[in-house]
């Protein structure tokens, strides 16, 4: 091979590599949230006991919901979060209130190959499975303490099913309250989103 030809190959490789590189770069960015309510304008949030739409044995659901939300709001909100309205001038204060309800019921189904069953009907490899389902419903209002105007309102429902038919309300709340928070807080504070964009390099 002649020297000129021998040198041409690597040089062309360099040129092609340089020219083939894309004039852009894909970048992942986190796009900040814009809260539906201008929460930053307020200095304090008061969480009132939620009214219960139905009595739940052994649990003060309205208070439990308020205590949970108060604790979680403290982590998220930059100002004070309390359970009582401030005495005197309630300027720049938001009040979170609403209603809450918890329903529970048993679900039964005849399932195959799940429960070995003995009985007169010859249901080999079939059996009656029982599960317990809980549904938590919340209607919330966020209002301006000074004017009483409702600045945000909504409703949500979360449910969980347990294989243990004797599952307790306490246990279900342990699962359901964080689910409520995961829907409620984006509504209050907005939610960040991930995205990809192309930066142009030339």
């Amino acid at each position, binding site marked *: 091979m002649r020297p000129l030809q021998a040198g041409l190959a690597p040089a062309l490789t360099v040129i092609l590599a340089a020219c083939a590189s894309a004039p852009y770069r894909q970048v992942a960015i986190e796009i900040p949230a*814009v809260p539906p309510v201008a929460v930053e304008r307020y200095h304090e949030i008061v969480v009132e006991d939620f009214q219960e739409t139905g009595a739940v044995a052994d649990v003060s659901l309205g208070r439990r919901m308020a205590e949970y939300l108060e604790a979680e709001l403290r982590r998220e909100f930059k100002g004070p979060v309390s359970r009582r309205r401030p005495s005197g001038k309630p300027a720049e204060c938001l009040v979170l209130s609403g209603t809450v309800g918890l329903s529970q019921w048993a679900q039964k189904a005849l399932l195959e190959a799940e429960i070995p069953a003995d009985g007169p009907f010859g249901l080999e490899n079939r059996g009656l499975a029982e599960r317990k389902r809980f549904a938590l419903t919340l209607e919330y209002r966020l209002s301006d303490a000074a004017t009483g105007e409702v600045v945000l309102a*909504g409703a949500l429902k979360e449910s969980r099913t347990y294989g243990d038919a004797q599952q307790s309300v306490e246990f279900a709340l342990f699962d359901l309250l964080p689910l409520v928070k995961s*829907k409620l807080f984006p509504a209050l504070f907005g939610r960040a989103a991930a995205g990809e964009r192309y*930066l142009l390099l030339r």
Partner: protein
Amino acid sequence: MTRKSPFVPVLVLAAAAWLGGCRPTAGPADLRLGVEASRDGRWDEAVDRWTKAAASDPSSAAAHNNLAIAFERLGRFEEARAEYEAALRLAPGNAQIRENFRRFKEAREAASRPAVPDRSDGPRGRR
């Protein structure tokens, strides 16, 4: 007579191609420094760099496109929209800018939708 090396013209050709625009980060220094700043998460500095790049070369669609991304990252959405529109006016056929703007509009639309989809009477907010 001295014989010239056959590699010389080839190397000159390669160097010319490299310097002539085939470099991945060729272009004004501020444009490149903005990219480096954004890569390190220094988006405020990236805004400064790309603002300078756009000022020194108002026809640079890249500077406006990148500025738009930085503004979007910083939550300055109105400024981001203006920069995307400026970039598209300068380079209406650029596929990357068009895609960026499409994604931007899609993200803004998604952000304006109710955050709680469970019920039709989901949050009704007021800013």
